């Protein structure tokens, strides 16, 4: 468990943007692993199995939770956003270069957590979990154009946050 707990917790925390929920999901993932202990004990792909399970459990949790509030959330989003975000490419190669590694990493995690769910979740699935746009759209049950717009908005919002001194 010690070998994988940071990986499992990171995946859940980055997707949910909430540490308490991430701990619950991490616990459920390890309980599931315990149930399959005989199969995983000698398996060289135990890490991949855990990664798949925690990603699926977290996405299921998010989709289930989202459905309860979808109507109002869509209403708010429709009001707040246009079709295509305008942006001046804001992040130079030296992003946050004046900060030390720990501060920079902390700043990026916070910026990621600050994104709204509909931007953060696809962004994390794309950049951390290496999922394709098509797979993400299918798992989150949203259209491909909307997914691409959400990811683009997420990147722009993240870049703007990182640009601030």
């Amino acid at each position, binding site marked *: 468990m010690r070998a994988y707990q940071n990986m499992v917790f990171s995946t859940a925390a980055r997707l949910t943007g909430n540490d308490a929920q991430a701990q619950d999901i991490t616990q459920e993932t390890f309980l599931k692993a315990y149930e399959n202990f005989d199969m995983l004990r000698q398996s060289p792909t135990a890490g991949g199995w855990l990664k798949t399970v925690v990603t699926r459990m977290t996405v299921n949790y998010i989709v289930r939770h989202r459905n309860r509030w979808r109507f109002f959330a869509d209403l708010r989003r429709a009001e707040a956003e246009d079709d295509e975000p305008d942006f001046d490419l804001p*992040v130079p190669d030296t992003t946050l270069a004046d900060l030390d590694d720990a501060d920079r990493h902390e700043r990026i995690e916070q910026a990621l957590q600050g994104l709204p769910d509909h931007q953060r979740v696809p962004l994390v699935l794309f950049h951390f979990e290496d999922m394709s746009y098509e797979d993400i759209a299918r798992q989150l049950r949203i259209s491909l154009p909307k997914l691409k717009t959400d990811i683009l908005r997420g990147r722009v919002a993240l870049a703007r946050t990182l640009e601030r001194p």
Partner: protein
Amino acid sequence: MNERHDELERLIGRVLREQPLRQAPPSLEARVLGEIERRAALPWWRKSFAYWPQLARVALVIALIGVVKLALQALVWLTMSVRSSQVATAIEQPVDWIHTASSVSRSLATAAEALVYAIPPQWLYLGLLLGLAMYVALFGVGAAVYRTLNK
């Protein structure tokens, strides 16, 4: 524009890939082990069916088959009983009551229809508009509360 999008994608991808894993809380391991122990301490009948002893599983399946058979027999018995005149007489009374209730509701509907025709149409339109306005107002209040709570 696409070039700029690609550049942004590469930039954000690089920044995120450089992120180290987050540290799991120190209490997590104890929490998971505690939950495993708690579940292990549960008696077998409170665990999921897959963890029941073989004998108990077979016994449950036999018992369920018995229950289904009994239910089917009870259904057959009830069907036969309904056909007998004694039961039919017993059922007639509630049926009479339903007939009376239905004729009363028909009369009420006729009276309501007459009343609606007697009301000037302007009043009806006004009432509809008022209802609609109240619905929209409540909807707006709901949306405002949602936004306030989810800021």
